[in-house]
């Protein structure tokens, strides 16, 4: 089935990724670990833009950027070059942003996603490095604010802006691209996507070959999908009513789920880019071979290996390889349990339960899932009980063997007793008749038989009740 893209939708995304796993900021030695700290406590003359301060490039940030570029199948530039992007804004302490312009560190890459009609290649135009501005905190709502605080803790954090080609044809494909990007970045261990502001998205979208509209201020992947759905609908409706789409920038209002016009092309800034004189170009091309060596096995390659090495369903391989933590977890489980069983238990069941609780795979012990799989495999508990054990561990804690006991989940004990009771009743027709005739003592005969058959593992009182229930059936 071929997706024919009835509305001629073209979506390109600009994703800002904050490399918050670097220890220090892009141009100064300030710590990046500010998220729990007071405002303006992770600052210095450089990231405050004090007069006379000068930037010094964080070499590790360059390595991270190259790693990302290579993982996105990009070409790496011969030498880095930074430019100044000049504009005035209170969160911008120098009155310009130090960024990359015509020599981005990486360009012309690609990302493969699960498109509307099978695998789809999304082009990566470029990935460049830049500094994050500070953060404005308004007192009250933005419209009626009595004042604004500026927190420069974020100022100078390393951002990688990844710009895609306009290759996505639906909000769903855009979402898949974002998920894939996050997956790759997660593998590279360059950022913690859970921290506030770690990934920010701007979207460019057009329909029927018309002019593109840029949608800014998208703060989540879900938001991106919603913003795009709205914007495509808006553009289609506008055209249907005889309107024309013009180049413009719109702002996504997350609360209302709508986009609002910010400025048209005529009002666009002239950023007056020019090379940053305070940073000398740095030759990086020679470092590519070494960086390549540090690249881990990436999601696509890992998925293929899981398919062939473990013989598991592609659906499972895909689910297991989105997050590297889950993939590693699975591989450990697969060493100690049947890989196919392990795939079902980790990908279908455990991941679902973790998702439901918004928990990470770290929240579960690998040995516990191995034990659960083994209990089910040995037919000592039911699959349903296995699920119950997972839920109990996640909600209340504990270990599988204790939960099996405390919740009475051992299928083995019940079955043996039940089977023994059944047999004992069948083998003792006289005793049954006697009992029904009022000879209570003949019941002891049958219970004794049950105890014999279960080698005393059954509880006598319980066995007696079960025999009674069996006779009265």
């Amino acid at each position, binding site marked *: 089935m071929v997706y024919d893209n009835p509305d001629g939708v073209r979506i390109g995304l600009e994703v800002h990724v904050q490399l918050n796993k670097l220890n220090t900021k892009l141009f100064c030695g300030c710590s990046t670990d500010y998220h729990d700290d007071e405002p303006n406590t992770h600052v210095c003359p450089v990231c405050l833009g004090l007069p006379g301060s000068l930037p010094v490039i964080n070499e590790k940030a360059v390595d991270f950027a190259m790693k990302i570029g290579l993982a996105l199948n990009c070409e790496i530039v011969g030498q880095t070059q930074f430019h100044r992007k000049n504009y005035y804004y209170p969160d911008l302490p120098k009155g310009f942003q130090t960024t990359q312009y015509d020599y981005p560190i990486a360009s012309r890459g690609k990302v493969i996603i699960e498109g509307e009609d099978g695998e789809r290649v999304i082009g990566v135009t470029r990935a460049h490095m830049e500094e994050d501005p500070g953060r404005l905190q308004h007192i009250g709502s933005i419209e009626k604010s009595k004042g*604004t605080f500026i927190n420069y803790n974020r100022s100078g954090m390393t951002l990688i802006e990844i710009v895609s080609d306009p290759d996505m044809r639906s909000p769903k494909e855009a979402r898949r691209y974002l998920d894939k990007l996050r997956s790759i970045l997660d593998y590279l261990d360059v950022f913690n996507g859970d921290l506030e502001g770690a990934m920010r998205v701007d979207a460019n979208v057009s329909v029927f070959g018309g002019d593109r509209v840029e949608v800014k201020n998208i703060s989540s992947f879900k938001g991106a999908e919603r913003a795009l759905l709205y914007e495509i609908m808006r553009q289609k409706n506008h055209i249907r009513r005889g309107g024309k789409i013009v180049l413009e920038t719109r702002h996504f209002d997350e609360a209302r789920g709508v986009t609002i016009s910010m400025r048209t092309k005529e009002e666009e800034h002239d950023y007056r880019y020019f090379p940053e004189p305070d940073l000398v170009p740095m030759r990086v091309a020679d470092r590519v071979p070494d960086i390549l060596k540090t690249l881990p096995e990436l999601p696509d390659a890992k998925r293929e290996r899981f398919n062939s090495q473990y013989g598991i369903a592609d659906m499972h391989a895909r689910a297991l390889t989105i997050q590297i933590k889950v993939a590693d977890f699975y591989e450990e489980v697969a060493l100690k349990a049947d890989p196919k069983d392990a795939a079902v238990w980790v990908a279908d069941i455990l991941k679902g339960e973790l998702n439901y609780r918004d928990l990470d795979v770290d929240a579960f012990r690998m040995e516990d899932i191995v034990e659960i799989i083994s209990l089910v495999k040995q037919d000592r508990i039911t699959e349903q009980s296995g699920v119950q054990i997972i839920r109990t561990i996640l909600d209340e804690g504990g270990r599988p063997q204790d939960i099996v006991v405390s919740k009475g989940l051992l299928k083995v004990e019940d079955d043996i007793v039940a089977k023994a009771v059944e047999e004992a009743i069948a083998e003792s027709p006289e005793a049954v008749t006697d009992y029904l005739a009022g000879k209570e003592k003949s019941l002891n005969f049958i219970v004794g038989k049950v105890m014999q058959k279960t080698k005393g593992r059954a509880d006598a009182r319980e066995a007696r009740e079960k025999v009674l229930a069996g006779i009265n059936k």
Partner: protein
Amino acid sequence: MAAWTDISGIKERIAASSAEEVTASYLETIGKSRINGFTTVWDRALEVARGIDKDGSSGLLAGVPIAIKENISTAGLSTTCSSRILQGYVPPYDAHVIEKLKAAGAVILGKTNMDEFAMGTSTESSYYGPTLNPWDTGRVPGGSSGGSAAVVAAGEVPVSLGSDTGGSVRCPAAFCGVVGLKPTYGAVSRYGLISYANSLEQIGPMATTVTDIALLMDVIGGHDRRDSTSIKRENRYTDALKDDVKGLKIGVPEEYLGEGIDENVEKTVWDAIGKYEDMGASWKKVSLPHTKYALASYYIIAMSEASSNLARFDGTRYGLRVEGDNWHIMASKTRAQGFGEEVKRRILLGTYALSAGYHDKYYLKALKVRTLVKQDFDRALADVDVLMAPTMPTPAFKIGEKINDPLSLYLADVNTVPVNLAGVPSISVPCGFTGGLPVGLQIIGRHFDENTILRAAYSFEQNTGHHTKRPGEVA
């Protein structure tokens, strides 16, 4: 005017009395100053000097008083670039050179006046009013480091630091009859120097003798990892202090003489070159063919960089703030009232040169010219050891004479700006007088070959007496 004392003289005086007494005597002189060279006198200077007396610092500059240009950051001491927009700004950190000076035991007496944001050749555009030339208080001291040159010439301090973007150390050194060095780009860390045009400027020392210049360079020179443009290279500048120019090959750029150059200035410079010949050097004319484009290239690059460098002064974090209904109005009111005319002119011109549609025509073209100018120097200096020329085309002009004619002021930089475009080192030394005003000889060298120009300058000094003349001693 107070007596000139060089660093070795200061050390003798300290040995005979104390750093505190020496500092106190300079502070007393400054207190009686009529030239408006200092903007701020540091209230901790005596305390620092006392500390040196007590701890017996063994630093190269132990107890030596020094003055610092208003655009070099000093922790706890106002640093305003002589602009209204930075009134009240006190840096929380020291520039690299200040750290070095403090470590060497120097005693900072205070900050010196300059053209606002170093944009000028006369120190008349300062928010604090003009500095007067000690040789003739009706004249300008040159600029933009006019304060740093004038206070040395007036004997208010033995040595000082300036900064040179297009001649801002050499011009006032020439006008005030002192020695001033613009080091090779990358030889001295700019960390803490408030940028005017970062790709062009260097911090440079000013003094009454070449020896003191070399001593100061030994203290402030060298690599600093906080300035990515500073070079990893060790050099002992005092090793250059030898009276020996035998066999030195001097090039005299023909473009730096003739039209626009005051006759008497040119004659004084030729006399100096003749002196070198007597001392065993040889000279020949050389050509720097792109000189005529250098001035235009320089001003486009400097103004473009300035338009961006000065964007941070918006009233938000420090300095002047003029309140407005919202941030943008506050920022534009602050800038409208905080910057002077010349600064505004350069920001506007620089913004224009970088704008879409003009960027290639002006900024990019200026960069190409810069490469050609640099090649001129490389070519000429492959053939000769140093270049010599008048530092300034005229002696110090009268206060008010040119301030309303920016173009004629820009033209005064014609012999100094090519050096900044090329990044090579250059020193200005006193080489005589015309009409009672000092004339400066500019000696230009190869990249990182400060020692050759220092040796040439030192030898000249050893064999002439111009540098010993003080204001009031020349008829």
